[in-house]
């Protein structure tokens, strides 16, 4: 079979997974806008969002929208608790220590979720129907449309939060100029705390969107988080628009690569892109506000 015939199909699935990568990357960027922390447990928030919704839907028997909402709330609480118990005590530590601490938190979250919710992969029902829509020669799952629309709404919300409110500006100030933020009376710890809540919420939302399409198990968070990070670096580290562009580009490249290489190597594609982008253009596609002015 000629691989060119199913390239449009791969393209559409690439956009879907790209939207998810964009959301995960936005979680990274939200935290990095408030402080210079990279939270490796971001992927676990995504996994927890899907798994907790599944638990609430199937075991507690809540209606779907309520289950999703409660799951997002729980994950936001977990994000707050993670900041208070891991990041806040280590706020003056070196980046290596912070990196290892978030990796430790990631190990804790994924294994605990395996313990509580079981280790089997879980799939939520679609938001509306399983019947694929036919657009020309491409068949699109309704869930993919939901993913795109919800991502778009969330992006607008995050854009308004970070560029049009005092809170978003305070968050950005506490990252770009810590001393200036202190002088203006901005509590940097509070900003990082809130950023953790926002990024956990975005992560959980992404998890709920993705679980009907791809199976979510307790161990799938780490890889998703790493790929989200790759997307954030690819688009331009520290920029919302960069994260979105990087997410879609990464999703499409990864999906289109299936036409040319065996499917098992798919996971390596993202990291090869990471190595290439770090070598040739560490600023990312759109450029990064952080790369020139500080260590990176």
């Amino acid at each position, binding site marked *: 079979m000629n691989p060119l015939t199913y390239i449009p199909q791969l393209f559409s699935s690439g956009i879907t997974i790209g939207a998810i990568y964009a959301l995960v990357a936005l979680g990274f960027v939200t935290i990095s806008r408030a402080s210079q922390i*990279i939270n490796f447990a971001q992927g676990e928030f995504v996994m927890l969002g899907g798994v907790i919704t599944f638990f609430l839907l199937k075991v507690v028997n809540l209606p779907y929208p309520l289950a999703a909402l409660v799951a997002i709330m729980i994950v936001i609480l977990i994000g707050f608790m993670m900041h208070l*118990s*891991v990041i806040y*005590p*280590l706020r003056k*530590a*070196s*980046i*290596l*220590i912070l*990196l*290892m*601490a978030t*990796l*430790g*938190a*990631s*190990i*804790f*979250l994924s*294994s*605990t979720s*395996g*313990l509580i919710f079981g280790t089997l992969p879980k799939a939520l029902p679609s938001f509306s129907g399983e019947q694929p829509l036919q657009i020309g020669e491409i068949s699109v799952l309704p869930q993919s449309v939901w993913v795109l629309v919800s991502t778009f709404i969330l992006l607008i919300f995050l854009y308004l939060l970070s560029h049009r409110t005092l809170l978003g500006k305070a968050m950005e100030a506490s990252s770009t100029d810590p001393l200036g933020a202190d002088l203006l009376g901005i509590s940097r710890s509070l900003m990082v705390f809130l950023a953790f809540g926002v990024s956990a919420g975005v992560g959980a939302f992404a998890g709920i969107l993705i679980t009907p399409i791809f199976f979510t198990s307790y161990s799938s968070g*780490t*890889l998703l988080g*790493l790929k989200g*990070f*790759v997307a954030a*670096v690819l688009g331009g580290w520290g920029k919302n628009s960069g994260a979105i562009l990087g997410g879609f580009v990464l999703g499409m490249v990864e999906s289109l690569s299936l036409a040319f290489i*065996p499917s*098992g*190597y798919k*996971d*390596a594609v*993202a*990291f*090869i892109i*990471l*190595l290439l982008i*770090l*070598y040739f253009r*560490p600023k990312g596609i759109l450029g990064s506000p952080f790369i020139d002015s500080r*260590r*990176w």
Partner: protein
Amino acid sequence: MVEQIPPRPPLGKEGWRDWRSMKTKSKSEFRKRDIFYLVPLWLLSLIAPDPYLYHKKGFKKKDFFYLGAICLAPLIWFDPHFHHLMVLAGIYAILSLGLSLFMGYAGQISLGHAAFFGIGAYTTAILTTQCALPTIVAFSASAVSAAGIAYLIGRPILKLKGYFLALATLGFGEIFLVIIRESTDLTGGVIGIFGIPWFSVLGFSFDTYLKQYYLIWGVLIGLFIFSKNLVRSKVGRALLAVAASEDAASSVGINVSRIKLEIFVLGAAFAGMAGSLFSYVMSTANPEAFSLGLTVLIVMMVILGGMGNLYGPIAGAILLTWLMDLLSKYQEYSLPIYGVILILLLIFFPDGIGTRLNVRVIYLIGYWAKKKKRDEGKL
């Protein structure tokens, strides 16, 4: 009118104290209770890693104490499980010794050393099972192949710093895992390679845990002496300069990128040797052993032992191997407990258990020495 500066009070009188006079004074006073903490402190000073190691030259009494303990421990505690545990600890110690040179001395971050460990293990596995080469040749080939791949990957990657270096090395580790899983005809995929023979030199086969213990700790001691000489040499001082400030280091004529690459390649060669020994000891090689979990483990060993200290990674390796063994009793609860312990250790001992303990001990000595005077209201 010029304001008069008040004259300095004379030495040893009220108001101004010279710390030297205070020290001599407390030294001359002998109190019986000093004995109670001096003996345990002396014992602790034999065991605890020294935080200011690179100020010392040569080998001290402590080193011979360690050497004796390493040689005699398996004979005194004759338990196969203990031997096996210490074999694993020795392998991880070789691995984290190489990483410690890169992270502790050169001040870089690498989360990809598990991949070099895996490259060493798979090179040995493939050469001994498919090509039937002698084990010592496969051992050398593992070190060389890990170092060669480190050279190729290090050239572009080591331009990066901080988080991005960490991420790039992590990405390399993931690529390695994917390649190992997918190239099934060479590496056996997720199942791995079985039936790797025991390590043997000139017909002498290391087939019991005790023999393996002496093999691995012998290799470790050799590499340790090599590293100790290295960090006391010109290269070692250049590494410390690079860790302190790359700009300042290059301004005094150190080729920063070359020295970082050299130490990265050296660390990878250590990891390759460790991987080779690992596959001989376990007689299998499968990709699960070289995942992100191993990276976290060895970086924790380096951090807990104390950065910039060669005894540290060995102590950290023994400590964490024992911890993992203790935790494995709790079955499915082991990973959550492990995560919590990692975070707690990082919060309370961010610069190594030994360093922090020594600082604590010095503080306690000062506290005890001054307590009497403080009680009398003199201090």
